[in-house]
C-alpha cells in the first residue's frame, strides 16, 4: 500500500506525473505551501510542488545565485536549467523567503540562457507575512489574480463550483493525513516516520484524487495491521527548514529512533487546517492558507507556532526534538534556537542540526550527531 507513495516521492518525474503528462494533462509547479494548489486542481491542471532531489551538480544554480544563499532554491534552478522540469507547462514562484522570491528573476534569466528551461506560464504569487484583515484582503486579490492568469493562459473556466469541489478533494486528503497522524501517536509503531513523511511528500506531487484513494486504503490497512513493537526506540519530533528528502527522516530512524511527528514544509504541518467549503471559495482559500502562520516567514507569530509544536509533542509523546536547518536559512535557523530554549525548559531535549540541502552529502556527520543525541536520551 505504501508503494505508490514511494514511487511518487522517489523521483522528480514520478510515474503518476508521467502518466498524467502522457495522457495530455498539464502540470504546473509551485514553490511554497502558502499557494493553494486547489486553484490548479480546479482548472484540471496537476499542481506539482517543486522539489530539489536528484541534484548532482550546482553549476547552473551557482551561476545565477551568489554564494551565501540556501541550497534549496539553487537546486530548483539547477534542475530547471538542466531540463528536468521540462514536463511543466507552468510554474508559480512565491515570496517564501528572499532566496525563494528571487528564484523568479534567476529562473527568468536562466530561461534566456537555457532554451526550454522556463515554462510558458510563469507567475509570481505574492503572500503577505501577516494575517490582519488588510493582509487578508491583499491575499484574496492575489488568489483572484492567479485564478485569472491561469484561466487566461490555459483557456479554462475556473468556476466557484470547480473551486469548491477542489477544496473538498484537498480537505479529504487532509482528513486522511490527520488519521494517519493519529496512528503515529500509538505507543508501538503503526507506520514509520519515513513512510509517513513519504506519504506527505507524495501528496504534493501526485493527482489528489488518486492520492486520496491510495491513502484511504493505506489508513484502512494500517488500522488493521499489528503494530511493530517500539523496542525502546526513542520518539522524535522533527522540525525546521524545508525538506522533501525522505532519506533525512530515514537517517534519523536508522540511527535508532522513530519519528512520531514532523512539522516540516512538505511534511504534515498544516493538515489540520481545513478550508471552509461554504461561502465564497476565494475567501475560504485565503482564510485557510493565511491564517495559521505555520512558517517563520510569518513574522511575530512564534508563540502560535510553538503552541502548535508543543501540542504535537505532547500528543505523540515525543521524547526529543530534532531541529534542522539548511545553512543560510536564517528564519528557521534562528527560530530553531527559540524552540530549543522553550522545549528544553519543558524538559524535552533538542538537537540542532545545520545542513546543506541536497543529496545527503553530510550523512556521516549528521548520523554521528543523531546517534549521540539518541544516546543522550537513553
Amino acid at each position, binding site marked *: 500500500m505504501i508503494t505508490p507513495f514511494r514511487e511518487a516521492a522517489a523521483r522528480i518525474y514520478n510515474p503518476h506525473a508521467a502518466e498524467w503528462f502522457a495522457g495530455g494533462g498539464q502540470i504546473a509547479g509551485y514553490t511554497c505551501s502558502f499557494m493553494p494548489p486547489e486553484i490548479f486542481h480546479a482548472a484540471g491542471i496537476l499542481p506539482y510542488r517543486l522539489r530539489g532531489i536528484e541534484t548532482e551538480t550546482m553549476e547552473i544554480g551557482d*551561476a*545565477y*545565485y*551568489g*554564494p*551565501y*544563499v*540556501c541550497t534549496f*532554491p539553487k537546486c530548483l534552478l539547477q534542475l530547471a536549467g538542466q531540463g528536468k522540469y521540462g514536463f511543466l507547462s507552468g510554474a508559480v514562484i512565491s*515570496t517564501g*523567503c*528572499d*532566496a525563494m*522570491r*528571487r*528564484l*523568479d*528573476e*534567476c529562473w527568468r*534569466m536562466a530561461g534566456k540562457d537555457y532554451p526550454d528551461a522556463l515554462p510558458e506560464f510563469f507567475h*509570481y504569487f*505574492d503572500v*503577505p*507575512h*501577516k494575517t*490582519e484583515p*488588510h*493582509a487578508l*484582503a*491583499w491575499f484574496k*486579490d492575489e488568489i483572484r489574480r492567479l485564478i485569472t492568469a491561469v484561466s487566461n493562459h490555459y483557456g479554462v473556466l475556473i468556476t466557484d463550483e470547480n473551486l469548491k469541489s477542489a477544496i473538498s478533494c484537498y480537505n479529504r486528503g487532509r482528513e486522511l493525513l490527520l488519521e494517519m497522524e493519529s496512528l503515529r501517536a500509538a505507543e508501538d509503531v503503526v507506520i514509520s516516520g519515513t513512510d509517513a513523511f513519504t506519504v506527505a511528500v507524495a501528496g504534493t506531487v501526485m493527482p489528489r484524487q488518486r492520492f486520496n484513494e491510495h491513502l484511504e486504503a493505506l489508513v484502512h490497512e494500517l488500522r488493521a495491521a499489528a503494530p511493530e513493537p517500539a523496542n525502546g526506540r526513542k520518539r522524535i519530533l522533527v522540525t525546521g527548514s524545508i525538506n522533501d528528502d525522505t532519506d533525512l527522516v530515514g537517517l534519523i530512524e536508522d540511527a535508532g529512533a522513530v519519528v512520531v511527528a514532523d512539522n516540516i514544509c512538505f511534511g504534515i504541518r498544516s493538515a489540520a487546517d481545513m478550508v471552509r467549503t461554504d461561502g465564497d471559495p476565494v475567501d475560504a482559500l485565503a482564510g485557510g492558507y493565511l491564517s495559521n502562520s505555520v512558517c*517563520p*516567514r510569518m*513574522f*511575530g507569530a*512564534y*508563540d502560535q507556532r510553538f503552541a502548535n509544536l508543543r501540542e504535537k509533542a505532547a500528543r505523540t509523546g515525543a521524547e526529543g526534538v530534532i531541529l534542522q*536547518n539548511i*545553512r*543560510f536559512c*536564517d*528564519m528557521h*535557523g*534562528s*527560530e*530553531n*534556537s*527559540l524552540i*530549543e*530554549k522553550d522545549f528544553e525548559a519543558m524538559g524535552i531535549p533538542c538537537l*540542532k542540526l545545520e545542513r546543506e540541502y541536497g543529496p545527503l552529502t553530510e550523512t556521516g556527520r549528521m548520523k554521528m550527531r543523531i546517534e549521540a543525541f539518541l544516546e543522550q536520551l537513553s
Partner: protein
Amino acid sequence: MRPEIYQYNYDWMLWRAIQAAGKLADGSEKETRKMMSYIPYFRKTAEVFINMGKPGISYLKRIEQYLDNIVTAHEKGKKIVMTTFCFSPSIFYAMDIVPVTLEVMTVLGSALWKRGTTDYMDYCVELGFTETSCSSQRGCLGAYLAGLGEEIDLIVTNTAGVCDTNANAFAFAQKYLDKPFYSLNYPSGLTDNPANQYHRDDFRELIRFLESHTGTTLDPDRLRAVLDETARQEAIVAEIEELQRLVPNPLPVTYNFVIYGGRFFFAGMPEYTELLTDMAEVVRDNAQNGRSGITSGIEKKRAFFFYIDHYTLNLSLWDWLDRHGISHIGSILSRSFKDDQPYMKGMEDAAYSIDTTDLDTMIDSIAMINSRMPMVRSIRGPYDRPNMWKEESLALARIYKADCLIYNGTPGCRNTWSNVKLLAGDLEKAGYPTHIMYGDAFDERVESWESTAARLEEFFTIRGLL
C-alpha cells in the same frame, strides 16, 4: 561575551565617545591636533569628521543628540522603539517616540572601534540567532539582547517581504525581549492601486499600534511640522545632488554617507535641515569655483555604489577613495525618491509626494515615504516594475557620470546575493566596469579591510580606471 564588555552599555559608550569627539574641534587647531595623540583608536574616525569642517562637527553633535535622546528617554518619560534603517523615523518624531535604529547604531560601533561590534554580533550567535544573518542588525542587536542598552519598549520594522533576514532579526528580538511588535509588510508591487491602498491601510494600523502602546495620540500639527521639514530637507538634498552632476564633483567623498546617515537618524527634524544647509554651502562654494570635493582637488574617477558602503575600521573606504582621487557619487541609500527629485523624472509613480492638506493626506504621505525608502523600494524586486534595481542603478550612473559601479553588502543579505550576479552582468553589458565586493560592510573578520582595499585596487587597475 567577554566579561569586560558587560561593563558599559553600548548606547552609553557611543554617546560618550561621540560627545567627546564633537568637542574636539572646539579648541584651537593646535589643541585639536594635540588631543588626537590621546585617542589613538578613535583618531582616524574623528579626523574624518573634523576634516569635513563645519558640517562634520555639526554631524557629530547631531549624532550625540540622537544618542542623548536614547539614554535619557525613560527619564523624560518617553518610549523607545527598536527599528530599522529603511524605516523613516519621522512618524516616531511626530509621536515623540525615541528610535533606536539597529543598523545605524552598528555603523557607529563599526566605525569607532577597532574590534567593531563583533563581540555583540557573536553574542547574538550565542543566543542562537544564526551567524549567517545580516551583520548590520547583529552588531547593535547583540548589545540590546545582552541588556547593554536602554530598555526597548516596542519593536517596529518594515522589511517583511523585502528583506526577510532583516525582518527575522526583529522577530527574534521580539520573542527574546518579549516586546510588542509591529511589522509593516510590503507587497511585491509598488505602483499599482492595491499596493498603494495596502501601504496606507498597513500604516494606519501601525499608528493604532503606536498609540496603544505609548499612550500618545498622533498630533496632526506635529506631523505637519515633521513633513514640512522633510520636504525642506529633500529640497536641499535635491540641490546638492544636482550639483553632484558637475565634473569635477564638488561633494567631498563623505557627503553622501552623511546625507543618508542624517536621514536615517533625523528625517523630519530641524537638526537635519541645519546639517544639510551647512553641507549645501560647501558644495555650492566648491561648484562655483569649479573645485572637486576630493582633498587633493583632482578627481580621477567617479564610482557609484549600487548597494551600501563599507563601514569598518575608521571609515577606511572613504579615506581610500579620497586618496585615490575617486569621487563617491552616492549609493542606493543616498537617494530619497521624492517626486521632485530630478532623477525621478519619468518614474513619478514610483516616487513619493508630500501632501499636508489634512491628517489623512499626511498619513498617506508618510506611508508613501516609508514604502519608498532605500531598499524597501528598489531592492524588493517589485514585480510591477521588474528590474527596478538595475534600471535605477543605470539611470543614476548615467546622470552622475559614473565611471564604474561597485556592489558592497553583507554575506547575510540573501536578497541581494540572490540576484547581484545577474545585475552585475547587465551593468557590464551596459558598459560599466562593475566590481562585486565580497567582504562584510560591518564585520572585518569576513574579509580584512586590507584585502578589500587590495581587491579594489586590483579592480581599478585591471579595468584601466586608474
